[in-house]
């Protein structure tokens, strides 16, 4: 069998011990790896109800069966833990080169347990695994940490947290290769809570291939499909993800001022077209990626750094009513440096601006910081980002995300979150299917676990009417399951702009062995989705949290092309539960668990209904 390296590192930071365990290959196949592997470990090994910042929480960094294999977009890894932001499962994914480099050490995953008594980092060079002192790195920003560690370990790739993770910001990210982020769910804070600053990897091993010839053949075929695809080989590499700014805005679903509006006539100032024309230095590709959607941009001071993605441009741009590209490029860089999730940070500042506008936050609350909370102030987004990163002044409150901020003023409904995690850059009132994925995503407000924007706006793989409900629940389930499978095998979901389920089956089987057919691979994704659901139910996150902010359910869009619409969740949610094989309370039925081979987890069903 190929694909898997067959070894998992287990690090107990309290005891400062390292063990290397054999990967249970049958288990790995059943849950695919990466996201599926991590969720299973969390459910099996972490007791219910623990504090995410306690030593009992585990932090898992895992690759998929295809990560590092010679197939397109195989640069992904996943961070899995109990989220301090949502209290549920966190699964944060990143690309770049770190994941394949980690796997080249001969390991599939690393599980961190306990808590170090002082700052440490993990060094992995093939079979050599060492816990090392990181006192000299504590407090340092990501570039300095990366450069210091690369001087100490030439040719190594570095994953690290920045100051935000150390200071337990609930919206702290984990960064790798300087500007790739495992961004969401506060995973950086869990790493910080363990006094773990970085993971440095250097390896020389190749991913074993079940059928080398077939892998080569399949890979060439899939690369060609991606290169010939008008999106994956055209619009996406040419303009980056920011190409979405105009289409989402023209459709009237581009949230402005904390979702108070859904259209702006200034969108082109922050579009992908404008970035390409004025700020782009070059494109950047992750490991074995023929798409190359990454951007490298020039900041106002002339420095050349990783550029912002669509979601970042929206969160700090339209959501804060800021249309200044220099400021957006700078905050993106600062988030990467401090290790902060750009979506949650921008959206939290936007929520703070609305709280200020409505008189909840007063001038005296922020006077000492010397920064405004006025809509459209580019200095404010830059200044508050630094203060979030260091938990300085009012930034200390912003560092825990918009839900806790708005709740502290008695108006949690002004936080545009699901399960306390900030929603991304699409107003679901005008995209009904996307709204159901927002409401039901296991990791809280999230766009990447079931990207219904593809069929509802972009016409991929087919055009669906974005205002209708019919068939959307089943479509959302399909997208959730397919994404769980793609994440878990270790590929990038952008490959779906071109590839479909049969292509993933081809690649998995060529690399790993003839294991899956289309139905089986999709079902493995469904298994992962249900396992995450069980984790959340066990942690008390039940159907009452499968919802959207009141604004999106009750206030029709005020103006623009989607004017008059609200999200009709009450009609879609029961149907979603039904197509999932869950009961009316959103709890998987025994039959569903049996069908998915999850019988051993039936014990959590009774906990869920208590």
């Amino acid at each position: 069998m190929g694909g898997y390296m067959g070894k998992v590192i287990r690090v107990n930071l309290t005891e400062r011990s390292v063990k290397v365990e054999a990967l249970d290959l049958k288990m790995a196949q059943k849950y695919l790896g990466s996201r599926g592997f991590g969720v299973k470990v969390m459910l099996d090994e972490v007791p219910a109800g623990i504090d995410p910042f306690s030593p009992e929480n585990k932090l898992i960094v895992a690759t998929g069966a295809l990560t590092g294999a010679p197939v397109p977009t195989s640069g992904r890894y996943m961070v899995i833990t109990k989220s301090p932001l949502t209290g549920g499962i966190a699964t944060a994914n990143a690309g770049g080169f770190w994941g394949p480099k980690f796997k080249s050490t001969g390991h599939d995953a690393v599980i961190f347990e306990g808590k170090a008594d002082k700052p440490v980092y993990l060094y992995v060079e093939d079979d050599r695994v060492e816990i090392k002192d990181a006192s000299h790195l504590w407090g340092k920003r990501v570039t300095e940490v990366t450069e210091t560690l690369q001087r100490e370990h030439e040719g190594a790739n570095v994953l690290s947290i920045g100051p935000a993770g150390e200071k337990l910001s609930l919206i702290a990210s984990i960064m790798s290769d300087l500007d790739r982020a495992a961004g969401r769910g506060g995973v950086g804070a869990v790493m910080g809570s363990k006094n773990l600053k970085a993971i440095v990897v250097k390896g020389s091993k190749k991913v074993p291939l079940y059928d080398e010839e077939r892998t080569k053949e399949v890979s060439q075929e899939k690369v060609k499909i991606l290169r010939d695809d008008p999106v994956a080989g055209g619009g996406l590499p040419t303009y980056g993800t920011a190409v979405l700014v105009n289409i989402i805005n023209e459709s009237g679903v581009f949230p402005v001022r904390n979702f108070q509006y859904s259209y702006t006539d200034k969108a082109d100032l922050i579009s992908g077209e404008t970035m390409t024309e004025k700020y782009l230095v070059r494109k950047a590709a992750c490991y074995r990626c023929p798409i190359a959607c990454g951007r490298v941009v020039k900041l106002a001071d002339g420095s050349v750094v990783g550029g912002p993605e669509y979601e970042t441009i929206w969160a700090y741009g339209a959501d804060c009513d800021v249309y200044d590209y220099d400021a957006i490029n700078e905050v993106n860089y600062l988030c990467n440096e401090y290790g902060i999730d750009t979506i949650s940070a921008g959206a939290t500042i936007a929520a703070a601006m609305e709280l200020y506008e409505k008189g909840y936050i007063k001038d005296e609350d922020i006077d000492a910081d010397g920064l405004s909370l006025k809509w459209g102030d580019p200095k404010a987004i830059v200044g508050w980002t630094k203060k979030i990163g260091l938990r300085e002044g009012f930034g200390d409150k912003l560092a825990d995300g918009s839900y806790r901020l708005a709740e502290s003023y008695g108006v949690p409904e002004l936080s545009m979150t699901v399960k306390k995690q900030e929603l991304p850059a699409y107003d679901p009132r005008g995209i009904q299917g996307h709204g159901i994925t927002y409401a039901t995503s296991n990791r809280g407000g999230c766009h990447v676990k079931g990207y219904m924007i593809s069929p509802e706006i972009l016409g991929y793989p087919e055009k669906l009417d974005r205002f209708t409900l019919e068939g959307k629940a089943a479509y959302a389930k399909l997208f959730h399951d397919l994404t769980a499978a793609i994440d878990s095998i270790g590929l990038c979901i952008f490959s779906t702009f071109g590839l479909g389920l049969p292509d993933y089956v081809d690649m998995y089987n060529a690399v790993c062995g003839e294991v899956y057919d289309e139905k089986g691979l999709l079902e493995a994704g469904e298994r992962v989705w249900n396992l995450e659901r069980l984790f959340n139910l066990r942690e008390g996150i039940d159907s009452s949290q499968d919802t959207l902010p009141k604004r999106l359910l009750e206030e029709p869009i005020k103006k623009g092309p989607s004017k008059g619409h609200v999200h009709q969740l009450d009609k879609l949610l029961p149907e979603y539960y039904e197509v999932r094989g869950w009961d009316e309370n959103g709890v998987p039925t025994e039959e569903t668990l049996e069908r998915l081979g999850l019988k051993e987890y039936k014990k959590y069903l009774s906990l869920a209904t208590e």
Partner: protein
Amino acid sequence: MIKVEVRLFAYLREGRWKRKVLEFEDGTTISDIIKYLNIDEDEVSMFLLNGVDGPASRKVKDGDVISLFPPIGGG
């Protein structure tokens, strides 16, 4: 005659412009406008009429906004 605002995005702007108000005869369709602009309809993936995608055979009326996009994606 009717006045229609036409907005072009991504590659469709190359050698053309970003937005213009143009005059057409009554009964003009989005397809007619695309032809008039010398754009290959196969290059257009989204045909927004006042923000709503749909067939290029739709007729436009005075004051409408047409937004044309080639195949794009991201997220």
